[in-house]
């Protein structure tokens, strides 16, 4: 058997690739295979504090090819800003050389989708009860809430959003997002 990760070269959406969208108004991409890293539990905060710019809880900091997500006081996740993810590897190597806390980058359990475009907010509004207006959900905020009927982590990316959620529900979430895009095109 080869390496377990990535589960599929196509990402979490797998055979649903043809359901991903690349339109001018809204685009849906699957970033699940992009590199990431994360730790949770006692010591996670101290481990990261020496290496990255650590944000407040439910906030994101971005820089040097990394986005640092603070999902809890002791639950920190790092996402690459591109498919290569070279800044992620040194973090992972440093941790593997001297592991502490618990690995929590969830590459096998969380799918990662990106919804972008001028109509991304209108589409996302159909999929969550969370207040997505700029005053309530700022540039660097994280919303851990329900999205497409799943528990998810929502953050802003340009004119759209990244969402992390249970990888086993990918087909359903992609279908729901597609349905919301279709409704927005018909009724928007």
């Amino acid at each position, binding site marked *: 058997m080869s390496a377990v990760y990535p589960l599929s070269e196509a990402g979490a959406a797998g055979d649903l690739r043809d359901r991903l969208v690349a339109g001018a108004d809204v685009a849906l991409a699957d970033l699940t295979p992009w590199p990431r890293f994360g730790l949770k539990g006692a010591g996670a905060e101290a481990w990261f504090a020496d290496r990255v710019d650590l944000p407040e809880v*439910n906030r994101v900091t971005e820089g040097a090819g990394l986005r640092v997500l603070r999902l809890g006081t002791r639950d920190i996740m790092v996402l690459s800003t591109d498919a290569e993810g070279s800044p992620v590897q040194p973090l992972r190597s440093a941790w593997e050389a001297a592991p502490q806390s618990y690995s929590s980058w969830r590459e096998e359990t969380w799918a990662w989708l990106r919804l972008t475009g001028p109509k991304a907010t209108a589409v996302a509004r159909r999929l969550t*009860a*969370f207040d997505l207006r700029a005053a309530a959900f700022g540039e660097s905020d994280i919303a851990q*809430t*329900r999205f497409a009927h799943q*528990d998810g*982590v929502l953050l802003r990316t340009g004119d759209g959003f990244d969402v992390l959620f249970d990888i086993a529900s990918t087909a359903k979430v992609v279908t729901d997002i597609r349905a919301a895009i279709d409704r927005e095109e018909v009724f928007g």
Partner: protein
Amino acid sequence: MKLLTCPMNGPRNISEFQYLGPVRLSPNPEAASDADWAGYLFGAPNDRDFQREFWRHTPSNYVFVAERHIGTGEVRRTYDPGEME
């Protein structure tokens, strides 16, 4: 829709939360009488009053304490378990 205020995530729909039961601190099993231990194992508080309860915000997997009136459902305070007296 009922709202509950999570100390970490703010006010959210009640459907984002899971009820984990009343806060019950276990007596010392070495020192407790049989009656006290049996009461802890098999009894449940049921006073029509505010009680401390554990709740979990499921998207962030965050557990906190809510003081909720079990008759009216009114929640007067939510806080991190670290602040529990």
